[in-house]
Structures are given as C-alpha cells and as structure tokens.
C-alpha cells in the first residue's frame, strides 16, 4: 500500500506541480480553468444583455459589442464546452476502468498546457486591447486581409489551433485508454454507457477537428503570405471557408453533447437504481448520431444559395437526428419510470435537462428545414435554439455530473439545500431568459446587432431576457460557492455515497494517486451492484509504474505496460509549440525556426529510459 503510494505520488511542491502526469490532478486543473472561463464568458453575456435590455442602449458602442460576442462565443465553444468534456473524460475514464492512469500520461499534461496556451492566447490580447471582433466563426472576406487589418483575426485563428491540438491530444488519449486498458472481463458489451459516450466523442473529435485547424491555417496563410484561398478575385472561394468550418462546426456540437448523454445516462442509472433501459439501443443511437453528424453541415449554410435539391438532402439528414435523440430520451424516461428513483440534486439536473433540451431539439427540427430556416437563421430564434441545446443539453448534464462525482473527487458531500437553490435559479432563469428569444427572432430581430430602435418593439422581451440571464448567472455563483464551501465544510462522503454501479465508486474518495490497490475484474455492466466484494486480479508491480493492457474486444489481459513517470518535457514542449504558434501570427519564418525547439523538446521527451523493458507479456498468475 505505502509502496504503491511511493511509486505513484508526485514530488511535493512546485516541481511536482509542473511535472505531474496524474490524470486527476490535470483534470482538476482543466476544470478550475474552465470555471474561470465560464465566469468571464458569463460576465460578457450579462454585459451584452444589459446593452440590449432597452432600445438604443448606450452602454456599448459597436466595437465593444462585437468584441464581447466574439469573446463570449469563442470562449464558450473553444475554451469551455469542449475542454470541460475532455476534462471529465480525463478524470473519469481511468477510474471507471479500474485503471491506474490514462494510456499516455505525458500527453495528458501536454494537452492541458496547450489548452492553457489557448486561454492565454485569447485573453492576454484582450487585456491588451487586441480582441477578436468577428464572431466565433470569422467568415472571410470580413476576416481576410482586406477588411480585418491588425492581428485580431489571427489571434482568434491561432487560439483555435491551440485548443484543437489540446483536444486532439486528449481524445487520442481517451480513445486509446478505453480501447486498450479496460479491466479483465469488461468486454465491449459490458462497457458502461458513459465510456461508450466518451469513446464516440473522442473518435468524432479526431475526425472533425482537423477540418477547423486546416481552415484557420488557410485563413492565416491568406492574411500572412497572401495565398488566395478565400479571395474570389484571386480564384478563391469564400464558401470554401464555410464548408470546412461547418464540417467541423456541426460535429463539434455533438462532441459537446455526446459526453453529456453519457453523464445523463450514468446519473439516471445510479439514481433509478436499475441498469439503463435499452443499453444497446442507446449505444446504437449514439453511433448513428456520430455518423450522421458528419453529413449535415450544410444546414448552417441554407441561405448561401446552394442548389435547392442539395439543401433538401441536408434537411432530411438533419431531421433524422431526432430519431436517435428521441430514442435516448425515451430510454432515460423509461429507466426512471421502471426504477426506484431518488431525486437528489444530480437527478434534478437530469429532469431539468430533459425539460429544457427537448425544446432545443424541437426548435432544431424547425431550423433543420431549409425553407423555414431561411426565415429563422441568423435571428434570435437561432440564438435561443443553440443556447437551449448547448446550455440545456450540455451544461445542465455537466452540472449534474459535477454534483454526482464531486464526492468522489473531494471526499466531501455538497450541500443538497444550496444545490437545489442553484438548480432552481439556473434552470428557471435560463428558461425565463432564453425562451423569449424565440419570439424575438420571429419578430424579426437579427443576431449580432449592438442596438435597435424603439420602433421595432423588441425592448420588452429583451428586458425579460436580461432579467432571466441575470437570475441564471446568480444561480451559477451559488453553484460554485456551494462547491467551494463544501470542499472544507461538506460531510465526509465515503467511497460510495450514492450506491453507484460503476467501478469508480470502488476507489477511495478522493482516489489515491494510483486509483485502485488492485485491478478489478468485471462480470457485468453494473459491477458494483452484482458483487458485494469486487473480485480483483493481482500481478501489477507496486514498486514500478505499471498499467494493464487488455484486448480491444474482450478485454483479455495481454501486457503489463510501463507507465511514464512525471516529466517536465510536456510543459517545455508545450512552451515550444506555443512559441511557434504565436510567432506564426507575425512571420512565416516562425514556422520554420519554431520547429527546432519543438524537435529538441520531443526528442528529450521520448528519450529512452533504462528499465523500460520491464514491460512484457503477462504471466498467468491467479487469473
């Protein structure tokens, strides 16, 4: 026991902080950063809501308003929603697998440092007054060299490169871990649904993100070295940008939503105290969503004047998503109805999620229709729609997941009373604030206008939207305060406060650096409900960092694998990569010379370590 501790613990102090490869510490870092970003983006949103709460608002001029919505959208999409899902995966996946760490521990550290680079890339220039001001998708020619002088557009484009490299690193890591490090007995058929969700979201990330990195790099090339990808006069095409952006942008929504489906399923299962109804149907519906998501990006472009028959194809493809999504909703409701549900805070979030997200899904069916979308796109109807989907569909499950796994992460329970208060404020405020936006859109209010005249008659509903958003933000502060206070004051949680079915509840709370003393052996989809004493296997060394590698389909133990020790090289490599990314805004030479420190860093990162050869085929012992 103590030897395991010695083997897996980080060095104390700053050196340990900078070199750690512990997935739990890195995930905690991710989440703290995300909460800070969420707060800042929320403040921006409130600022914009105050500007719009009455006609002819004078709080902001057009420049400040454009910066605010650009920063809000970019932060929420690239620095909050995607990273927080990666962070939950980084934290949960090894615990749910009974594993000691992720497959590529140093890549986890590298991923966080680059994500932090993305955060600084956007917010340090903002502090210096060089804020991107063209929205969260910067369409050329507006973002091209002719209409966006200076470096605002480049900063946005490189911020994306940072966060996407970070997300790709995390996704490769999570997918490899789920496929190769499941505990003995956890065949694919017995894999908890949350792990399916993380696996599918990770694979989607790997396919979708290269498109946006490509398109932002092309934009930078247009701006830096006068390539003409998006210049009609130079033989380029402005629509090419939109196709590539939305080929990423639509799957992106599901990359955020699919892990949320995993959270909801885990909570519904644990609190209904029965296995998820329709496990196979749920997995198949997620798989079909992940495939369909890549075939409907054009529904973001119905108004650009593409051939109508093509638009009809994308209309049908987009609407079909409602089938797998509807099946999931049914399965959750059926699980609650046929189980023995307890309505603790995480379960309340599930109810709030269903009531809110279904509205977003149905308004999604409306905007999926090409002829109707011509009236709805780029109006407040769409603003309402995607906030219902992203806040109702992804943030509410995330808050539920936060409350559900908080005791595991900290060893303390959160206050139920304050949890309920936060829930009521957030869900109530959100619906009060965002439902009126549907009507504003139908009354003709376009997106991204910094002001409107009193003759338009939009002020009453806008005021309501401001009030609702404010209530919602207050609820968010209550949620964070509850989490902070409970960290010191909460009742001790014990290993399994909710009676959960999956392996993470077998680890101590908070889990030690090595997670589990022994690798669990699994016989079903809800292992903790099937055995009073969880069977385990032994054979991993306790005086060296070793993890178990199993086969992809049946999780048959194959190898003991050396797991890399803490290292400073991920941080130094991230710094080298950051230097190249930042430099390439100013000169193309940065790409060439920036490669040198990166190459040196990577060589030292992967420098062979003596003793690594202890890895090898698993000896049959006690199996």
């Amino acid at each position, binding site marked *: 026991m103590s030897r395991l501790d010695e083997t897996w613990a980080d060095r104390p102090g700053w050196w340990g902080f900078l070199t750690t490869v512990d997935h739990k510490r890195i995930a905690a870092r991710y989440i703290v950063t995300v909460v800070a970003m969420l707060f800042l983006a929320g403040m921006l949103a409130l600022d914009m809501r105050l500007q719009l709460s009455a006609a002819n608002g004078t709080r902001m001029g057009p420049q400040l308003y454009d910066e605010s919505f650009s920063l809000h959208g970019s932060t929420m999409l690239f620095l909050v929603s995607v990273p927080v899902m990666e962070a939950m995966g980084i934290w949960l996946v090894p615990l749910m697998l009974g594993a000691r760490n992720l497959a590529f521990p140093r890549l986890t550290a590298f991923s966080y440092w680059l994500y932090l680079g993305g955060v600084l890339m956007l917010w340090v220039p903002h502090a210096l007054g060089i804020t991107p001001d063209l929205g969260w998708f910067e369409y050329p020619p*507006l973002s091209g060299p002719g209409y966006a002088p200076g470096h605002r557009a480049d900063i946005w484009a490189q911020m994306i490169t940072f966060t996407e490299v970070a997300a790709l690193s995390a996704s490769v890591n999570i997918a490899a871990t789920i496929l190769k490090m499941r505990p003995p007995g956890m065949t694919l058929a017995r894999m908890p649904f949350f792990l399916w969700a993380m696996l599918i979201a990770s694979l989607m990330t790997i396919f979708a993100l290269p498109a946006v990195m490509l398109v932002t790099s092309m934009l930078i090339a247009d701006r830096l070295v006068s390539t003409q990808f998006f210049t009609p006069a130079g033989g380029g095409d402005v629509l090419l940008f939109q196709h590539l952006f939305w080929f990423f942008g639509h799957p992106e929504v599901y990359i955020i939503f699919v892990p949320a489906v995993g959270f909801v399923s885990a909570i519904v299962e644990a609190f209904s105290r029965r296995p998820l*109804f329709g496990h196979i149907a749920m997995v198949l519906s997620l798989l079909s969503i992940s495939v369909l998501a890549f075939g409907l990006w054009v529904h973001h472009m119905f108004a650009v004047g593409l051939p*109508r028959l093509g638009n009809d194809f994308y209309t049908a493809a987009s609407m079909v998503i*409602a089938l797998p999504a509807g099946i999931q909703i*049914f399965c959750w409701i*059926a699980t609650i109805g046929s189980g023995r549900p307890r*309505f603790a805070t995480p379960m309340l979030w599930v109810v709030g999620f269903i009531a809110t997200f279904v509205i977003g899904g149905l308004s999604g069916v409306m905007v999926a229709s090409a*002829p109707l979308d*011509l*009236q709805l796109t780029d109006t407040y109807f769409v603003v309402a729609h995607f906030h219902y989907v992203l806040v109702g569909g992804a943030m509410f499950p995330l808050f539920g997941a936060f409350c559900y796994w908080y005791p595991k992460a900290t060893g303390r329970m959160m206050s139920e009373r304050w949890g309920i208060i936060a829930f009521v404020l957030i869900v109530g405020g959100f619906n009060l604030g965002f439902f009126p936006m549907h009507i504003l859109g139908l009354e003709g209010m376009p997106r991204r206008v910094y002001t409107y005249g009193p003759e338009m008659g939009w002020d009453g509903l806008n005021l309501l939207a401001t009030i609702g958003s404010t209530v919602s933000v207050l609820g968010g502060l209550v949620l964070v305060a509850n989490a902070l206070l409970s960290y010191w004051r909460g009742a001790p949680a014990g290993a399994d406060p909710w009676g959960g079915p999956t392996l993470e509840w077998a680890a101590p709370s908070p889990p030690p650096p090595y997670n589990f003393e022994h690798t669990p052996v699994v016989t079903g989809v809800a292992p903790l409900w099937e055995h009073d004493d969880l069977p385990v296997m032994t054979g991993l060394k306790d005086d060296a960092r070793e993890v178990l590698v199993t086969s992809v389909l049946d999780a048959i133990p194959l190898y003991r694998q050396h797991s890399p020790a803490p290292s400073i090289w991920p941080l130094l490599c991230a710094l080298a990569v950051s230097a190249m990314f930042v430099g390439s805004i100013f000169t193309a030479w940065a790409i060439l010379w920036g490669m040198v420190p990166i190459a040196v860093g990577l060589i030292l990162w992967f420098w062979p370590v003596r003793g690594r050869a202890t890895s090898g085929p698993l000896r049959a012992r006690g199996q």
Partner: protein
Amino acid sequence: MDGRAAMRLLSPAFFIPLAACAGRQSPLAPAGLQAEWQHWLLMLMFWVCGIVYALVMALLGVSIWRGRHRLAAAPETSPDDRRLSRGLGLWAGMIVAGLTILILGSFVVERELAGERRREALVVRVTGQQWWWRIQYRDPAGTGWIETANELHLPAGRTARIELGSVDVIHSFWVPNVAGKMDVIPGRANAIDVTPHRVGWFRGQCAEFCGAQHAHMAFDVKVDTPAEFAAWLAAQARPAPAPSGAAVVVTNGPCASCHTIRGTAARGRAGPDLTHVGGRRSVAAGTLPMSRGALQGWIAQPQALKPGTLMPAVALTGAQIDAVAAYLESRK
C-alpha cells in the same frame, strides 16, 4: 389542391395574438407568397413539435410519479423490460411518422419557393455594401438602370427576381414579411424570387454579420399597386435640378466625390445615389427617419450617429449644411 387553401387548413389560430403585435419586419405577418408558405410551414412545425413536447413531458411526469411510489433498498439488476421495449418501438414509430410529415412539408414548401415564376419577373439588382444597399431597376423607357438606395419598391402581385451582389463582404438580404433570406456573397451571383401581394410598408435588414454597422444596414420596402409602382419608377428615372446658393457644394464639393445626383455634376459611386433621396423614408440605411433635421445631423456628424460608417464628416459651414439638407429634402 390549391396552395392557399392548403395553407388555411393550418391557419395560425394560436399565433393570432403574437401576429397582431408582429410588425413590418416579421415572418409572422406574411405579405408575400414565399413568406406565406414559410409561415404555413412554421405553423405545421409548431403544432407537431408542440404535441411532441407535451407528450415527452407527460411521459416524464408519469415516470416520476410512478417511480416515487416504488421504494426499495437494493438496486434491481435484471428487470423485465419487455413491455418497455414494445413502448420504445412504438415511440420510434411515432417519431418516424412525425418526421415524415415535417420532411414532406419542407419539400413541398421548398418546391413552392423554387417555383418557375421568372418569365414575367421584374428584375431588380440589389448590391450589399458596408453598410447600405444599392438598388437598381431596369429603365422601362430605355436600356440603362435607374438607381436608388435603401428603399425597395415592388409591385403587388408580380414576382420580382432580386439579383444579389456584394462589393465587399458577405451580407444577407432579408425582408421577412415577403420572403426568407438569401446571402449576398462576393464572387457569387445569387438571386431570390419574391412575390408580394399585400400593399404597405415593410422593413428589411442585413442578416449576416458584416462589420461594425451591421446593426444599421436596414432598408424600407414599399409594396405598391402596379400603377403606383409605375408612377414611382417613372419619377425615379427623372434627373434632378442643379442646386443653387450654398447648396452647390453637394455637386461640386466633397459630397460629389462619393455620391451621384443624376442631372448634375455629382457622379461619385462610392455612396448611395441621392437623386431622389428626399422621397425616401429613412436616412443612412434605416438609422434615422427622414427629415431635414436628420439630414443635417447626418451630414454634420455621421460618426456620432453611425460609428464606423464609411461616410466621413466633411468640413462644411453650418449654412452650407442647412442648404444641402434643404436641397436634399426637396429631392422627392
């Protein structure tokens, strides 16, 4: 079946209170054939989606109600789900049926929007620029184009084919009471057919973010009777008399380098044609209602009224501004 009759089958009974307060920039108060079809589709969607939402909430409520009465200590690890599985099949069937209705409805409306009505179409060229609209009609008397700006006149009952172009960035042409959007994209020749049939004033607005003054890139739309339209177009074709007194700066001063006033020396092309500016309803692409005061303010301090606008504040004396505003206001 006649299209209009089909539309009335799903009359917007529910939306009447909302439609009543919907104004001259709203898809809820259609005044054109295309907008009517889109409104019909919106109603179809609203009812189908509303029923689905009510159903989901009812199921959720029943589930919570039933679940709460079933308290037991140990988790159930192998429940019998045969009835639920049948329910899932039924539910999936209902979703497929609902989607079939909505997809077919979309196809029908799409077909109507694409209908072949262009034979008799009136051709109007609309060009988006940061941040106003150049509007050109074919001269019925000659071969040239009659130009105006930020005010679109259309004859009722006749399809107009709006040919859209952009000289700078992407904009989007949108007159919700008449039809849906069509993006205005540099390097692409887009066109949209609109068939207004209710006479009146409406409002259009740019719907694609296009820079600092995206919020003030609106235009007025007047649907006229065919006779009124013909008279209006004939009036627009007439040139303007030359200004006199202090107002001559408008044709030989800085104004003329960007603006055209037909019949005078002012032949600039960067800004809106001012030949009949006084007859328009608003100033600076929907920023202010038309009046002499608005014109004075706009000439004196364009950056204060529309920060970022490409119209510069030019050095004119107060007397010159007053004279120019009076001249422009008289240009009906």
